[in-house]
């Protein structure tokens, strides 16, 4: 999850990337956007995190997540 947030920091900028990640209540973040704790099912939380970025800027931001999708095949991919 830190990897996803890291990618979105590069794409969208650190402020908005971290602000959006904080919208997922199951994720606890450090000041610099690193995930320190995850509550609940990690796959579900991961999907929720991706959804929050897609909600803001569309499917295009998932382009950078190819390696993560490969690593975690259970994550929903944009249709």
């Amino acid at each position, binding site marked *: 999850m830190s990897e996803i947030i890291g990618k979105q920091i590069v794409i969208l*900028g650190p*402020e*908005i990337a971290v*602000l959006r990640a904080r919208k997922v209540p199951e994720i606890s973040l450090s000041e610099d956007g690193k995930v320190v704790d995850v509550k609940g099912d990690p796959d579900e939380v991961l999907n929720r995190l991706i959804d929050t970025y897609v909600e803001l800027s*569309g*499917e295009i*931001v998932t382009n950078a997540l190819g390696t993560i999708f490969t690593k975690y095949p259970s994550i929903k991919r944009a249709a």
Partner: protein
Amino acid sequence: MLSGEIIFIIVLILSLYGVVVAISFFAVRRMKQNLKKKEIDARHRMYELAILKEISDRTGYSLNIQKILDVIAGSLNQFLEYSVAGYMLIGADKIIFKADLERSVSPQFIKDVRMRMLKSLEAILGVSVPDAQVEETITGAVMLETVLEPVRSYFNIPLVVSGKLAGLLTIAHTKEGLYKEEEIAILYKIVNQASRAVSKLEDVVRTEQSKVAAMLEGMVEGVVMTDRDYRVVAANPSAKEVIGYTQEGMPTFFDFTTGLKDTFDIKTKLEEATKLDKVLASDDIVIKGKHYEVLVSPVKANTGPAKGQILGGAVVFHDITHEKEAEKMRNDFTSMMVHELRSPLGNIKKIGEMLKSKEIVENKELSAEYVGMLYESSSTMLDLVNDLLDVSKLEAGKFDVDKQQVSIKELIVDRVKFFDTSAQGAKIELSSYFGERVPERVLIDAKRIVQVVNNLLSNAINFTPQGGKVMVACFMHKKGFNIDEEAHQQNIQWFDVDERKISSAISDCLVVAVTDSGEGIEHENIGKLFNKFTQFSSSIREREHKGTGLGLVVAKGIIEAHGGTIGLGSKEGAGSTFYFTINL
């Protein structure tokens, strides 16, 4: 007791008053907060509407994304505090980077923003974007080396058009933690709305382009259309064939520049046509062995607010290879005719010079021989000129025949007799055959039919080796029957002439055929026989009997002028049958 109760009541009243005051204070404060929030929301909404209206007014939601981004970047100061607002746009061969400085920042600040934007583009595209491709424009406040503030706040908004990344909008500031999510979200909303509008327009344009592509699909001419940035927007199959493009999909402009390398500078021509605002034609451009006439034209809008503006260019490749071949054939034919005329003319001149000599004039035997040669050369020339005149009349549709009732048997017998001497000289057996029911008289132009029979007989004798046979046959054809079968039934010398089995459709007529046992004609050359421009190397005896080939062209014209048909059948190494029909 009474005073105690009074004190209690006073305390109670004061407490109640305090509670009421406190509640009122908090209610007012909450109301104020709500009002303030509503005011901010209204301001944001107003900004959102104002900027969308401005985009619509200034660009009409055109396909020019840069214009839209200019409007957004130019109005941001009404809504956000920033040091630099900039954008990057992905072009065909470069990336446009424009930054507007609201306040002075250092060159390093700009460099940092540019680098962050490139990294963002790279992350989304998944490919490396070289910094060298970036074309930078800085506007607004001046850059100062002395301002040492780094980038402390920034965010990017990806610009997506029709599902593809078109660019990036960036806001950056020297202050830290400046941007709130609501402000960023509004800006996202505006950019997304503009992107959607452009995407919709692009969809419309794509639909129109597919209509244009469908129309171009069936065109024989190769057609390529480009936009102002030299991106190929349409290219039909013929255009792909011109450059040898065999892959699926649309070729790029690069494919065209590569495919036309060293033969046609397509980009320079398009630039020139656009600059001069006129159609440029280039004659005889040879591309991959084919000849083309290439037209390059600017494409302008003819309606709407952009009326008259250049939208791109169109290139049309017209294949003139066949015209060039025909031109070559015409030139070859003219050269051949000149050569054929020059040869007897040269002889006449030489003989004339010799006849000037008193010695030769006084020698009756020698002068008679020279006069004979003079006659022969001038006859050859006259025949050739007559053939040319006949062909010219045929082409002009002025070839008339003077039909009279003539005995066809007599005509053929007379011609066989005429050629018998030369046939005997060549040790060739010449004969004639007349089938049953051949009428005594037929309606023909005797002079012209004699010309045809002469031509067929002279060719047959010329191309038949010693010991060979030549036969002139004359028989009746009946509608519904095949000419070849009719000939075979009569056991005459014959090579099948009706390969397509269509002769049964020919009405009752007289068939005249000349069959030889010569070397025959190659199948591929048969079609060339009746074409005035096409000569072929057919025989080892070609030098011996080289002619202009006009005789058969004239014969075809004569027979067609009689309403008949002419044709042939041949077997290589065995012989040929030339036939014509005369309507009854």
